[in-house]
C-alpha cells in the first residue's frame, strides 16, 4: 500500500468520524478536493489523471452492482481502485460490464459512507450516534447473543438479510448459533416465479438458464433481462447476438416500454395480470392444432396429454378470443405467435418474471407459461428452456464428479423443528398452533416458526425456505414471534418494502425489537432505526465465494477478492461473525477456526476453493490471478434428465415396477435417484415423480391445510388461469399503478451511486397520452396517486381506507398500457447520504471524505434549481402476499388519480 503523505491528523479524523451527536465539535467543512481516509490509506484526489495501464495492477474480482455478479478486473493505481472492466475469462458475462460495475468505485469511495461502528445515543430513529471501537461493538453484540443462546430461545436472534452473497457463511453462523431465523427478501423478488419452477422441475436451478444464444424464438412475459433480472448481463448480449446475427425473434408482453420491450421484434402492451391468459391461449392453440411434441410429453410429463387437452381445449375456456377479451391482445396475434413458437421448437423458449408472476394469480399464470415449453418439448434442448446443473458447480443434479467447493471444517447442523412439546411450539399463538397441527408430518418436520416457515404460506418453504419476508415485521408486531436481537444485513425494509412505513413503525418500537443491529456499507433508512451500526466492507474490500448458473451450461465459478484494504474501520461481515462466535463460545468457535484478519479470511477461502485451485498449475495464486474458472471439458447441461443414473446410485437401488422409479436408501432415507425409460435407468428430473410435474397435488394439499375455500384456483393441482379480482373489477376511473426499476439502478441500494443517480434521479408518473387525455391532464401536470387495498385472499383485503397517496408530475409515454400508470421505485431517499438525497453543497461535518462532484456538481439538486431526488413510492404499495407462496403481488395496485392545481 502506498503511504498517504498528506493525511489529516488522527485527532481531526476522529472528530470527523464521530457522527452527528458529536459533530458540532468538528466544526468547519472539509476543504474541497481533499478526500479524507484513515491514515496510511491512499486517497482519491480531485480530478484524477489518466491511468497508466502498463503500470497499474489488475486484480480480478466479482462485481456486486446487482444480483448478476459478473467477473471483473479492477485496475489499481497507487493504491486507489481506478477502473472496473469485464473479466474476459468470465464465459458468463463474456468479459463485459454494465454501468453498475462502475459503481463499485463510487460506492466504495462515497464520502458519506459508513466507516466506523456507531452506537445510538439519542432516541431510536433520531439519528444521533457516537463512534465506538470494534472491541466495544463486538462485546455488545456477542454479550447479547450469548445471553439469548443461553436462554434456550436461540430463535429470538433474527438475522434478516437483503443481499447476502457470502454464499453460505451467514447461514453457517446462524446454524452454529441455533436460530432458524436467517430470513430474507425472496418473496418481494421472485418466489411467485420460483414456485412453479420448483413444482414442475424440482429445482429452480438458481433460475432456469434459457439457451438464448442458440434460440430462434423467445416469448417474454414481463421478464426484464436487460434492466433488472438476475443473470441479466449473461442474457442481454446473447439475446442481441441471437436476434441480430442469427435472426431470432423476440416477442414481449409488458405494461410499459421496458428495455426488452423496446428491443423486441414485437412488443405488446398488455392489460396487467393477464400475461397468463395469452400463455394459456397459446397452449390451447398448440394442443388444438396438434403442434405439441407427443413423444416428449409421454416420456417426461406426469399426466397424460389427454388430461391436459381436456383441461385446456375441451371446454373451450382458453380460446384466443377469450384471451383477447381479457388481455387486449388480438386473438389472431396469439394464434400466430403460438404457431411460430411451436414451429421454432426446440429452438424456442419462454421467459417470465415480475410482469407475469408478481400478481395475485402469478403462480398459476407462470405455470401456464412453463407449460408452453413442456408442450413443445424444448426443455433442456439446444436453444430451448435449459436447466443448469445448479449453479454450475455443486453437482447436486445432472453433472457428476464436479469439484466441491464449500466452507471447510465442521458443519453445524440445522436448527430443530418447532415440534409439539417444545418451548418454541408452546409460545406460538393458538391459531398458528391449530394450523400447524393440521400439517402433514413432512411439513411438521420442517416447521421452524412463523418467521422462517410462515404457517399460512406453506409453499414458501415446502420446497426450500423462500420465506415471506415482507410479512416479517407484521408478524413480529402481531406477536407471532418474539425477538431479542434483530440484525439487518444489507437490507432495507424501512425504505424498500411494500407499506415500508409499517416496517418503520415496527423497527421504532423497542418493545417489539429490543435491540437492532444494522450491518451495511452505508447509512440507510434501515440503519437510521438501529441501535448499533456496523460498517461492512464493500465488494472491493472483501472475500466471497462466487457461484451463478452458467449460461454456457458448463461448471463455472470464481472468487471475489479484495483490491484494497477496507477503508476506515470497515470490516467484512465474515470477520464480524467469526469474532462473535469466539466471544460467544459454547462450541460455536469451532465452526470459525481461522484468524481474525483479512489474511485469516484468505486462508479460509483458500481451503474453501482447494478443489478449484487444484485445477490450476499455480494453485490458489493462479486461480486468484485469473479470478474465474470454468470446465470446458464437460458436456453442456443439455437434456440432463436423459443422463444415465450413475453406477454409484444404481448400486443397491430398486425399481418400482408400476412407476419405474429407481429408489435407494441414502442416509437411512429411501430416496429417488432416477427413473426407468425404455428399459434404461436415467436421471429424470429431481421431482418426486422424476417427471415434470404439470399436475402437482401439493397445491391442493397447501390450500386445504391453510383453509382456502374449496375450489379456490390458487389451490388447483392442474395449471389454471384466474383473474386478479381487483383488476378484473377495475372501474373506468381507476388505473393500475405499477412500479419498476431503471437499468442503471439496483433497487433501493443505488441512490448514492453518483453516476447512476445522475442518469436517473427523477421518477415522474408515466402514462399513455390517451390516459392523460381521459383525465384532462397534460405533460408536466401534478397529480395525486391514491392506492387502494387488494381484493383477493390476502392481507387487509377489501378495507375501504386506501393504503396511501403520493404526489408527482405526469409524463406521457406512448408505450405504456392505457390502463396503467407507472413510476420507478428506487428514488426519494431520505437517508443514504447526500448523493441519494440530492443535497449538493459543502461536506457535512461528519463526512468521511470529500469529492468535488458531491460538493459542487450535483446539478439536479433543488438548491441548484434542479428537480431533486424523486419521490418515494413504496409506502403506498399494499402488503399483498400471494396465497400459499407469499410472493408480493407488486403489480396489482388499483389506484385513483387526482389532478392538483
Amino acid at each position: 500500500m502506498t503511504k498517504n503523505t498528506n493525511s489529516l491528523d488522527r485527532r481531526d479524523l476522529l472528530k470527523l468520524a464521530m457522527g452527528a451527536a458529536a459533530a458540532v465539535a468538528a466544526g468547519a467543512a472539509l476543504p474541497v478536493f481533499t478526500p479524507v481516509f484513515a491514515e496510511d490509506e491512499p486517497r482519491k484526489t480531485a480530478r484524477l489523471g489518466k491511468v497508466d495501464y502498463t503500470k497499474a495492477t489488475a486484480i480480478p474480482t466479482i462485481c456486486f452492482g446487482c444480483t448478476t455478479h459478473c467477473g471483473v478486473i479492477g485496475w489499481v493505481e497507487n493504491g486507489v481502485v481506478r477502473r472496473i472492466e469485464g473479466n474476459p475469462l468470465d464465459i458468463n458475462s463474456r468479459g463485459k460490464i454494465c454501468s453498475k460495475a462502475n459503481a463499485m468505485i463510487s460506492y466504495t469511495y462515497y464520502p458519506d459512507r459508513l466507516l466506523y461502528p456507531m452506537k445510538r445515543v439519542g432516541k431510536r430513529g433520531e439519528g444521533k450516534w457516537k463512534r465506538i471501537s470494534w472491541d466495544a461493538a463486538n462485546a455488545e453484540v456477542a454479550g447479547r447473543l450469548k445471553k439469548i443462546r443461553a436462554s434456550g430461545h436461540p430463535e429470538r436472534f433474527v438475522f434478516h438479510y437483503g443481499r447476502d452473497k457470502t454464499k453460505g457463511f451467514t447461514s453457517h453462523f446462524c446454524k452454529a448459533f441455533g436460530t432458524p431465523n436467517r430470513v430474507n427478501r425472496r418473496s418481494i423478488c421472485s418466489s411467485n416465479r420460483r414456485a412453479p419452477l420448483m413444482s414442475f422441475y424440482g429445482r429452480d436451478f438458481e433460475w432456469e438458464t434459457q439457451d438464448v444464444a442458440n434460440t430462434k424464438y423467445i416469448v417474454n412475459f414481463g421478464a426484464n433481462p436487460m434492466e433488472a433480472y438476475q443473470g441479466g448481463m449473461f442474457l442481454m448480449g446473447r439475446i442481441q447476438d441471437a436476434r441480430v446475427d442469427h435472426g431470432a425473434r423476440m416477442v414481449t408482453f409488458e405494461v410499459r416500454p421496458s428495455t426488452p420491450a423496446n428491443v423486441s421484434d414485437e412488443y405488446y402492451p398488455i392489460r396487467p395480470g393477464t400475461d397468463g391468459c395469452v400463455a394459456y391461449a397459446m397452449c390451447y392453440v398448440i394442443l388444438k392444432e396438434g403442434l405439441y411434441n407427443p413423444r416428449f410429453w409421454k416420456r417426461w410429463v406426469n399426466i397424460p396429454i389427454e388430461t391436459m387437452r381436456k383441461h385446456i381445449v375441451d371446454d373451450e375456456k382458453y380460446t384466443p378470443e377469450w384471451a383477447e377479451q381479457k388481455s387486449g391482445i388480438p386473438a389472431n396475434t396469439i394464434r400466430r405467435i403460438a404457431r411460430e413458437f411451436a414451429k421454432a421448437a426446440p429452438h424456442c423458449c419462454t421467459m417470465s418474471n415480475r410482469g407475469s408472476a408478481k400478481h395475485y394469480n402469478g403462480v398459476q399464470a407462470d405455470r401456464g407459461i412453463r407449460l408452453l415449453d413442456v408442450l413443445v418439448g424444448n426443455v433442456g434442448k439446444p436453444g430451448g428452456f435449459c436447466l443448469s446443473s445448479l449453479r454450475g458447480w455443486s453437482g447436486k443434479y445432472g453433472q457428476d464428479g464436479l469439484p466441491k467447493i464449500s466452507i471447510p471444517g465442521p458443519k453445524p447442523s440445522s436448527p430443530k423443528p418447532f415440534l409439539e412439546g417444545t418451548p418454541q411450539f408452546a409460545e406460538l399463538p393458538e391459531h398458528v398452533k391449530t394450523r400447524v397441527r393440521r400439517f402433514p408430518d413432512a411439513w411438521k418436520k420442517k416447521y421452524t416458526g412463523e418467521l422462517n416457515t410462515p404457517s399460512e404460506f406453506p409453499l414458501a418453504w415446502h420446497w426450500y425456505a423462500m420465506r415471506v419476508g415482507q410479512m416479517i415485521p407484521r408478524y413480529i408486531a402481531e406477536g407471532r414471534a418474539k425477538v431479542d436481537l434483530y440484525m439487518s444485513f444489507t437490507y432495507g425494509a424501512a425504505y424498500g418494502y411494500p407499506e415500508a412505513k409499517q416496517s418503520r413503525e415496527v423497527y421504532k418500537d423497542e418493545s417489539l425489537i429490543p435491540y437492532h443491529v444494522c450491518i451495511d456499507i452505508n447509512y440507510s433508512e434501515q440503519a437510521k432505526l438501529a441501535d448499533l451500526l456496523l460498517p461492512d466492507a464493500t465488494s472491493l474490500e472483501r472475500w466471497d465465494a462466487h457461484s451463478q448458473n452458467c449460461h454456457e451450461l458448463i461448471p463455472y465459478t470464481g472468487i471475489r477478492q479484495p483490491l484494497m484494504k477496507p477503508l476506515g474501520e470497515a470490516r467484512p461481515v465474515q470477520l464480524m461473525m467469526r469474532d462473535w462466535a469466539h466471544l460467544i463460545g459454547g462450541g460455536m468457535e469451532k465452526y470459525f477456526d481461522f484468524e481474525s484478519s483479512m489474511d485469516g479470511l484468505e486462508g479460509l477461502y483458500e481451503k474453501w476453493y482447494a478443489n478449484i485451485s487444484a485445477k490450476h498449475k499455480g494453485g490458489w495464486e493462479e486461480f486468484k490471478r485469473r479470478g474465474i474458472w470454468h470446465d470446458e471439458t464437460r458436456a453442456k447441461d443439455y437434456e440432463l434428465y436423459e443422463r444415465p443414473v450413475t453406477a454409484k446410485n444404481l448400486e443397491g437401488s430398486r425399481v418400482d415396477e408400476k412407476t419405474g422409479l429407481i429408489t435407494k436408501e441414502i442416509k437411512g432415507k429411501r430416496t429417488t435417484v432416477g427413473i426407468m425409460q425404455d428399459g434404461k435407468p436415467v436421471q429424470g428430473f429431481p421431482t418426486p415423480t422424476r417427471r415434470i410435474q404439470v399436475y402437482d397435488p401439493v397445491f391442493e394439499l397447501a390450500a386445504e391445510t391453510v383453509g382456502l375455500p374449496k375450489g379456490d384456483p390458487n389451490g388447483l393441482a392442474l395449471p389454471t388461469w384466474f383473474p386478479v379480482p381487483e383488476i378484473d373489477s377495475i372501474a373506468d376511473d381507476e388505473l393500475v399503478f405499477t412500479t419498476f426499476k431503471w437499468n442503471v439502478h439496483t433497487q433501493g441500494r443505488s441512490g448514492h451511486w453518483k453516476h447512476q443517480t445522475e442518469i436517473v434521479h427523477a421518477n415522474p408518473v408515466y402514462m399513455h397520452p390517451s390516459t392523460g387525455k381521459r383525465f384532462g391532464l397534460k405533460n408536466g401536470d401534478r397529480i395525486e396517486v391514491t392506492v387502494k387495498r387488494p381484493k383477493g385472499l390476502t392481507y387487509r383485503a377489501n378495507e375501504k381506507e386506501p393504503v396511501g397517496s403520493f404526489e408527482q408530475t405526469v409524463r406521457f409515454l406512448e408505450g405504456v398500457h392505457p390502463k396503467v400508470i407507472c413510476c420507478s421505485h428506487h428514488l426519494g431517499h431520505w437517508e443514504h447520504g447526500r448523493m441519494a438525497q440530492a443535497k449538493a453543497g459543502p461536506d457535512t461535518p461528519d463526512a468521511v471524505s470529500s469529492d468535488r462532484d458531491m460538493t459542487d456538481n450535483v446539478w439536479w439538486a433543488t438548491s441548484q434549481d434542479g428537480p431533486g431526488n424523486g419521490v418515494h413510492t413504496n409506502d403506498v404499495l399494499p402488503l399483498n402476499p400471494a396465497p400459499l407462496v407469499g410472493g408480493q403481488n407488486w403489480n396489482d395496485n388499483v389506484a385513483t388519480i387526482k389532478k392538483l392545481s
Partner: protein
Amino acid sequence: MPERLPWEPSGKPRAMKRAGIVIDLRRCIGCHACSVSCKTEHDVALGVFRTRVRYVERPGKAQLSFLPMLCMHCQDAPCIPACPTTAMSKGEDGRVYVNESKCDGTTDCIAACPYDAIQLDPQTGIADKCDLCQHRTDVGMDPACVASCPSGTLRFGDLDDPDDPVSKLAQEHGARGFREDAKTRPTVQYIGLRPSVEAAVTGGIQLHPEEDEVIYVQKKSD
C-alpha cells in the same frame, strides 16, 4: 513465466489511419455501460458528458429507441478552426482531442460543434471531450466505452482500412454519420440510424425534462 492474461495490455499502439467507432444501433440496449464507463475512466465531472445515451420516442410508436452519442471525430471538425488558442487538435489517426495546456476555456469550440460533444469541466474550466481514450489505445487497449459494451453495439477500428472487421461491418451495413447535412464528415458511424431518431435529437445530446421526445430527466448541455 505465467501465461499472459487477456487484460494485460500489449503496451503498443495499433497503427491506424482513421480511428473511429462504429455504433450498431440494432444491438443497443440503452444500458449506459458506455457513458458511465467513460465517466469513471476520465473522472468526468457530474454535469459533463463525453458519452451519453439518449432514449428517444418515435411518434405513434410504443417502443423507444436508444442512441449512444459521443464526439463524432469529424474529418472536417468545426471545433478545430473555431479554437482561438489552437487547443483543439487532430491526431495522426484522425481523432480530435483537446490539448489541455493550450485551452483557456473560451468555449468557441462548444459553439462550433453541431453535436454538443464538448463541455467545460466545471472546476478546471478546460474543454472536456472524448479522445477515444488515447491513453488506452496508446497501450493497445480499446476505448473504455467499447471495452464495456455488453451488447457489442460499440466497436473500435480503423475505418480507412478495408480489411479491418469494424470497417467491413460499417461497409456491409451502410453505416453513416449523424446529421450528415452538417457536412462535418464524422468518423463515428452508425448502423441502423433511423431518420426519425436523428430528427428528434436536434440539439443537446443529453436529455432534458422539457423535451417531449426524450424520457430520462437529464441535463441539457449549457
